[in-house]
């Protein structure tokens, strides 16, 4: 009896040590074999080495990235691409810390981030937009909203849909006496950055510039909900009557399927516009001429009367110095593919994105060329 007990005790005490030893040894062996295989693929890069590119980040880009991934797997079977919709903040952080090869982001890198992580670049891949969706039963026409009204809704100052401030900009639409439930992203999100940029640009008095970012301190609005990912916003809004949410255009079909309405938003010219190919391109035309070489540019709140106010470049955040020549060349080839073959309507049309203008494509090409192994 007692000897068996002691045996078990001894075994139990030794098990973690054994595990530790096993981990240590396997770690070191895999480490050495890892470097060996890396050098092997590097030398075989001219031949047929297999390379893995990993991606995390923007859930707004995620559906498009999934389509790219599938097509690229057929076109270039030697390169394996893994992807995850984790929110833009994670994409930026993972790319900065070197956890992944590509960090996808709806937000460009700030100068502070660039200063902290040298050698990090943001490459524009496509043009996207963010919608403001709502769950207000019985309203079929798009509700008109502007930055001032939205800022007050998110600040908890406007609390019902039939508030005078909303009805004033929606003549002829009967809005119900329904409580507004504001939804915001729980994770660090590019959509949050774009939406809050719009609020700040339209109404700096109610929405200060310190509340613009991928993670912000939301004002206290009673009953507000936090959702993870663009998908979480769609399902959360779908199940909450009276909700309002900002959701990337790549989820527009899902939002419609969840019977959510899509608002027409006021641009700087004061016109209410819905997101469409024409309105996104009209807005883009006012910005693309002045896109800097770094690709970092806010496309928020266009002055074009027919332009949609919340559009952005979708970015791939990458390091210019890659761990190996093989990874660098695979990465460059893939990124080039995304802005050429991948920029066709087959891929972009399905998610409501627009291709980059010619001059921005050139900027992206130049940025891609700066990547080395």
């Amino acid at each position, binding site marked *: *009896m*007692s*000897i*068996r007990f*002691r*045996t078990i005790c*001894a*075994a139990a*005490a*030794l098990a973690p*040590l054994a595990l530790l030893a096993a981990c240590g040894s396997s770690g070191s062996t895999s480490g050495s074999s890892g470097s060996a295989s890396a050098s092997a693929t590097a030398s075989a890069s001219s031949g047929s080495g297999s390379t893995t590119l990993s991606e995390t980040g923007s859930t707004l880009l995620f559906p498009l990235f999934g389509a790219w991934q599938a097509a690229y797997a057929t076109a270039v079977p030697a390169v394996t691409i893994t992807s995850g919709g984790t*929110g833009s*903040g*994670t994409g*930026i*952080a993972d790319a*900065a*810390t070197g956890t992944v090869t590509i960090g996808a982001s709806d937000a460009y890198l*700030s*100068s*502070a*981030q660039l200063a*902290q*992580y040298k050698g990090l670049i943001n490459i524009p891949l496509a043009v996207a937009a963010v919608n403001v969706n709502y769950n207000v039963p019985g309203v079929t026409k798009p509700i008109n909203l502007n930055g001032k009204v939205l800022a007050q809704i998110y600040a908890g100052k406007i609390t019902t849909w039939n508030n005078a401030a909303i009805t004033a900009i929606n003549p002829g639409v009967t809005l119900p006496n329904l409580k507004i*439930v504001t939804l915001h992203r*729980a*994770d*660090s999100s590019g959509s949050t950055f774009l939406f809050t940029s719009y609020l700040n640009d339209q109404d700096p008095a109610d929405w*200060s*510039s*310190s*509340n*613009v*970012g*991928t*993670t*912000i*301190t*939301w004002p*206290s609005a*009673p*009953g*507000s*909900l*936090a959702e*993870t990912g663009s998908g979480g916003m769609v399902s959360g809004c779908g*199940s*909450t009557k009276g909700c309002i949410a900002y959701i990337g255009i790549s989820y527009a079909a899902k939002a419609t399927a969840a019977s959510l309405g899509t608002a027409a938003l006021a641009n700087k010219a004061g016109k209410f516009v819905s997101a469409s190919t024409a309105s996104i391109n009209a807005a883009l035309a006012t910005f693309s001429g002045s896109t800097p070489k770094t690709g970092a540019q806010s496309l928020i709140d266009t002055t074009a009367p027919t332009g949609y106010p919340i559009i952005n470049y979708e970015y791939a955040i990458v390091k210019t110095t890659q761990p190996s020549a093989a990874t660098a060349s695979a990465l460059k080839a893939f990124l080039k593919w995304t802005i050429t073959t991948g920029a066709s309507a087959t891929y972009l049309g399905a998610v409501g994105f627009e291709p980059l203008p010619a001059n921005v494509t050139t900027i992206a090409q130049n940025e891609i060329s700066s990547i080395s192994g």
Partner: protein
Amino acid sequence: MTTSATNVQPDGGAGSPPPRRLGAALRGVFRGDGIIRWTGRIGAFVPLLALILILLVLVVRALPAIQFAGFKFFSGSTWNFGSQYGTPVKSDGILHEPGEVFGALPEILGTLVTSAIAIIIAVPVSIGAALVIVERLPRRLAYYVGLFLELLAGIPSVIVGLWGALTFGPFIAHHIAPIIADTLGKIPGLTGFFGGDTGNGQGLLTSGLILAVMVIPIIAATARDLIRGVPILPREGAVALGMSDWETARRVTLPWVGAGLIGAAVLGLARALGETIAVAMVCGVALGNLPTNLYGAMTTIAANIVQNIDTAILDPLDIRAFAELALVLMVITLATNVLARLLVRRVSGTALPVGRGL
């Protein structure tokens, strides 16, 4: 160390038992006890070393944030990571993002209040459940109920969180919260806390209830084992004296295991204080928001860290503030444990539990 080594002697008095397969093999390896003794000694110091190292690293990492935020870290109720896109500004000699403010009071309170709600609900429910399982249910049924309880304790917290976010939270908000607001919320003086907007299922109440759900199996399973260990004689004696079941439980059974029950409650409290992902999924992630009533969106220390680590990691000062938050959470947990030990000692110090108050 040596006493524990001498304690591990075969006390069965079976002489030298015949060597068996694994036992013999192991004994061959550890002849002379030297290796096992040293393994034991090193093993004993590893947890202590880990604790000291974690504390040390956290303090060193948190220093700039402590300098930057000062005492406002505990008194301020605004938390803002600052605008990543603004030009850095200098204040008190420290370069930081504009708008950057660290006031962790709402998170510290959020952690404490959600855990308090959980314990207030979980302790009576758990002890009641344990009493029923041990004293009322038929043995076979009690076995299965107990098994179920242990299974419940093993559910990964992310699953509880998912259930809370999708089903439990909205149910509470739409069916339970209005009842609370209509009853407790109508009592003068309590209107502020129990009345008002009942929310949509993310916030203080849901977080507390979710924590209660996670803590009940832990406390109940421990309490059941404790109560099962109470000898039958005192209980029979109490019944013989004409006590009702309730009186027996209150005056004999529970005092007998009082210290253990406090230990069980603290075990649950420690779990509740540190629980991260389930709370992060149902708390509403309202940074720097001191909820005005029981239903308001809030956040806890752990939930803030897990939800915003991506943002924090990109700014040198934010990550320091997280280190300070982690330090605060660690101190709270350690303080809880120390307090529990003191309580247990006090309760178990009062000589004979039976007969008190009789």
